[in-house]
């Protein structure tokens, strides 16, 4: 385990977050199962037509990815607030932005890894070619930071666990729409043989901007939450 005196506090926080997920795999595993199931049910629910499946594939994958990340992000901060860790963080004058950033990084990386592992299955279900599958992977990698940052933001409202999911998703969806549209357009462009670099570049730019701004906004909301003693 980390030596408290020599390893920096942020490294220890990263290890702590990773340990928490390793020991409480439920939210991650459940959200990924949801992703896989939701995507898989579209070919089942829609009358079988390969052309239609290929057309809707980008949109379906991206909407499911958004919902899956949102569902697992809903309880991001709940445990830490209930156990008082966030208050201790503030008392020690550590920047809350870093806390949010580390959480987003760990969850984002783990979600991304699992979604990438599932992508061959998705490629099979929707009969994607190798190039389209590669674009799917690239779009997920480029868009995941934005997704996870935005879901982290909206989950800061419900951090006291009071069933705020509907409002959270109502705010999330319009704000995350550019990311979803770019992600699915990149895969759709790959299907038509058009160049995809532009879409992926735009997606990466959006991810970078959101990673810069949103942790700070999330930290502000969390601070307000803690000062209020609840929302």
């Amino acid at each position, binding site marked *: 385990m980390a030596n408290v005196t020599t390893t920096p506090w942020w490294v220890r926080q990263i290890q702590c977050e990773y340990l928490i997920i390793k020991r409480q795999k439920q939210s991650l595993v459940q959200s990924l199962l949801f992703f896989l199931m939701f995507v898989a049910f579209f070919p089942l629910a829609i009358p079988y037509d390969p052309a239609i499946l290929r057309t809707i594939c980008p949109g379906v994958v991206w909407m499911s990815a958004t919902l899956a990340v949102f569902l697992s992000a809903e309880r991001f901060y709940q445990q830490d607030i209930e156990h008082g860790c966030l208050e201790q963080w503030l008392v020690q004058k550590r920047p809350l932005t870093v806390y949010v950033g580390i959480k987003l990084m760990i969850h984002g990386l783990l979600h991304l890894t699992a979604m990438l592992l599932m992508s061959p299955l998705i490629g099979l279900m929707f009969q994607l070619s190798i190039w389209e599958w590669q674009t799917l992977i690239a779009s997920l990698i480029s868009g995941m930071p934005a997704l996870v940052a935005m879901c982290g933001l909206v989950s800061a409202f419900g951090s006291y666990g009071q069933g705020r999911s509907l409002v959270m998703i*109502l705010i999330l969806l*319009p704000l995350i729409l550019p990311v979803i549209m770019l992600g699915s357009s990149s895969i759709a462009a790959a299907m038509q043989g058009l160049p995809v670099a532009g879409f992926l570049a735009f997606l990466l730019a959006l991810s970078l901007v959101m990673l810069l*701004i949103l942790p700070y906004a999330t930290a*502000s909301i969390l601070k307000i939450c803690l000062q*209020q003693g609840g*929302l």
Partner: protein
Amino acid sequence: MLNFLYAWGAPKTFYHYSKVLSKGFGIVSILALLFGWVWGLCYSPSDYQQGDSVRIMYIHVPAAFLSLSIYAFMASCALVTLVWRIKIAGLLLKSAALVGLVMTLLALVTGSLWGKPTWGAWWVWDARLTGELILLFIYAGLLALDNTLGENPASDKIVAIICWIGLLDLPIIHYSVQWWNTLHQGSSLLVMAKPKIHASMLYPLLCSLLGMLCFAGWAILSLTQVALLKREYRQQWVKTLEFK
């Protein structure tokens, strides 16, 4: 002079000043709207291609312009709320969200009524229309958030934060007609160049625009006054108010 500006941040003086201002807005808006709409709907020329259906422009363009500028106004109120912690700005933000929602809805509905005779379709998924629809959802989400947070004193700050994050949609809508090849026509009214429409259509349009702006000002101020009274109902100045 500065004291006059600071007075706008205090509830009691804001209430009395805004009463005067909103009355002014109301009168100007009624006159300008009457003048602009009667001129535009009855006396302006009809378009050589679109015929008389172009007259819906005098409602659609001001509503769309307002949907964007009200969001910009909300963003500046959000800045004032977050940086200078002025509570009145938070109230203005929430009232503006409601007026903005109505304007966006009006723009979308009149736009679709206009689109049917001219484009042959009630709705197309082009860049500007989609951006406006997203703006509608952002307004609705902000109002839903405000509703959920309710009487919580932190609700001002949180709605302000979310308002700022939604600001990204605004340049997308405004520049959508330049960046993409859209069905929606490009800008006819430009800040730095001559307007692209003839004076006989330009003046009623500007008049209706002014009228709608003043209407929005009146509506936002009136809603803010009510919200302020609700929030400050225990204060002495509220108890001694007379309602004519």
